[in-house]
């Protein structure tokens, strides 16, 4: 296989918990040993519920957080250990699209100025060259040159997503990380935005990492998916494997919980999870999911944390009972 564009090896990000002055009762293990690879040109999905660590992981890949442990290599170079100047040059190639692009644009700047800024910081292009580049991108995302003179509040939610994308694309990145790219959009707008994402990926040969809690968007867009629960990847595989033959009980419950626009007979909702996820500050010993898991037993679930193991080619599951879970889910 070709060298992966991005490779994470046992990445951990812990945040210290402080209570009062100098008292450190422990660590919040936001990301707790995540390993996966993203191939050039693919759309890789990171899915999970709030608090599972998917955004922290995205920001760690970008280098906004320094990993507590583990290695992140991008195009064969370790991003976490580079000297600042080189890290900055590398960061041109990894761009992050924030959840709320309206809030990440400066309200006092025209959109044109916001789009120029990354080029001012990262390149030595002349003003005219920058303008050409900015106009090319604003057209690529389906807006017009006249929009550059406007201010962020004059744009609708869907247009703001387009602007957020234009701003990262001016730098010609190779990897774009999207954090909840369609949250808060109406479905009719979401559809056009997702279509645009696909077109631009083909046109600029981009690789995407899609962070989302919306499984139907992930299923539509991604080739491979990692399902996270409380800081770890519990299942990783091709989109077809994850959605058609999920093996981890959490993945199965998550899929059953999506409200689908199909009228099902009364009570036919599949297995619903009981309870809520425990706090990441006080994780249960053994398997993290065992407190909500329908399959959990005292042994080995409470004793051993299940490792991510390959159950089929390219399909990895972290469950002691991955083999006993019926593979054909309805």
């Amino acid at each position, binding site marked *: 296989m070709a060298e992966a564009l991005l490779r994470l090896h046992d990445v951990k990000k812990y945040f210290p918990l402080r209570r009062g002055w100098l008292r450190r009762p422990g660590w919040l293990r936001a990301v707790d040993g995540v390993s996966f690879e993203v191939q050039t040109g693919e759309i890789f999905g990171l899915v999970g519920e709030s608090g599972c660590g998917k955004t922290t992981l995205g920001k760690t890949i970008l280098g906004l957080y320094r990993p507590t442990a583990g290695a992140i290599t991008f195009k064969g170079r370790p991003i976490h250990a580079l000297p600042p100047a080189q890290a900055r040059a590398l960061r041109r190639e990894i761009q992050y699209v924030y959840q709320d692009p309206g809030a990440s644009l400066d309200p006092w700047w025209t959109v044109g100025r916001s789009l120029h800024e990354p080029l001012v910081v990262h390149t030595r292009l002349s003003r005219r060259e920058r303008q050409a580049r900015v106009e090319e991108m604003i057209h690529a995302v389906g807006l017009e040159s006249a929009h550059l003179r406007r201010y962020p509040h004059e744009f*609708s939610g869907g247009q703001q997503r387009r602007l957020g994308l234009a701003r990262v694309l001016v730098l010609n990145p190779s990897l774009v990380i999207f954090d909840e790219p369609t949250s808060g959009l109406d479905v009719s707008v979401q*559809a*056009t935005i997702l279509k645009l994402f696909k077109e631009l990926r083909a046109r600029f040969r981009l690789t995407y990492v899609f962070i989302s809690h919306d499984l139907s968007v992930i*299923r539509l867009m991604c080739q491979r998916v990692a399902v996270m629960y409380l800081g770890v990847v519990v299942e990783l595989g091709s989109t077809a494997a994850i959605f058609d033959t999920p093996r981890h009980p959490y993945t199965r419950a998550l899929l059953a919980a999506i409200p689908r*626009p199909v*009228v099902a007979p009364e009570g036919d909702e599949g297995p619903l999870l009981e309870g809520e996820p425990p706090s990441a500050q006080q994780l249960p010993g053994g398997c993290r999911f065992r407190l909500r898991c329908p399959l959990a037993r005292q042994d080995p679930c409470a004793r051993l944390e299940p490792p991510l193991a390959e159950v089929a080619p390219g399909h990895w599951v972290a469950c002691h009972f991955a083999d006993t879970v019926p593979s054909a889910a309805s």
Partner: protein
Amino acid sequence: MSSAPPVLEVRDLCLRFHTDQGTVEALDGVNLRVLPGEILGLVGESGCGKTATARAILGVVPAPPGEITGGRILFGGEDLLRLPERELARRIRGRAITLIPQDTLGALNPVFPLRTQLLDVLRWHPPEGDGGLWGLLRRYGRRWRRQALAQILALLRQVQLPDPEGALAKYPHEFSGGQRQRLLIAMALLPNPVLVIADEPTTALDVTIQAQILRLLRRLVKERGTSVLFITHDLGVVARLCDRVTVMYAGQEVETAPTAALFTRPAHPYTQQLLASLPDHRKEELEGIPGVVPSLIDPPRGCRFHTRCSQARPECALTRPPERLLAPGHTVRCHLY
């Protein structure tokens, strides 16, 4: 379709907001009916007037800038729009019609423990009738308090809040989002209302928690025979929860149907395109709806969807289509039918 008279009937409701930019025609002749014991979904995209309709029913449209310019809201044989505010506050709002809001933290008072807030609901909106000043004084007595707390605890158990006794002494921020939503469901059911309006109650929740809450809500209201007007933008939630659905677009209702019929035989072009916009991995291409929602300051005449409709005809820009009955319980407002 049941022949019982509807619990709530909204007829030709028109609502305007006077703003600096002009007059926003927020609702333009909205019609809907909630039948006894059913869950009616009110669906549409942001800005289509779902919440404005709910606010008009509850009588909490801020005026000014809001102004209800026409229509009737019939509830229990009365027109709520003609009822004096005093009556509305005493008998209807928070009592016969209650609300489950989306913003759970904003709906609870951060400085009082839960016990106080739940007792206040029963104190001011007792299911048995308020009994005037003497009634109110009695509800500050010890005996009433004991009975009320028993009633509250029973309901907290029904909404499956963990440790209900302990919960009474806690403050709103000590609960998770899902738990707060359970609390607000309990709060809305406490006065034993005839109708509950739920405004996007699960939008802020994770899917596994949302699934729990929806199942709980459906079970509780079906047991009690309470009617629900469920406002949402999520068609998946509608499919799971609602008995019938009314679809809104830009301040007008466009289609009403039993849930199954809406998903299998959507009639209005807007409904059809909305369903086609849903992410579906089996489709090669996603279809959005071309164009944008029109400004409601100078809205399109006739059918407000005609500016984005691929099947629009000349008459669509002239008159709003009348309501056509396609099948029992399935009505549409479109000139194609």
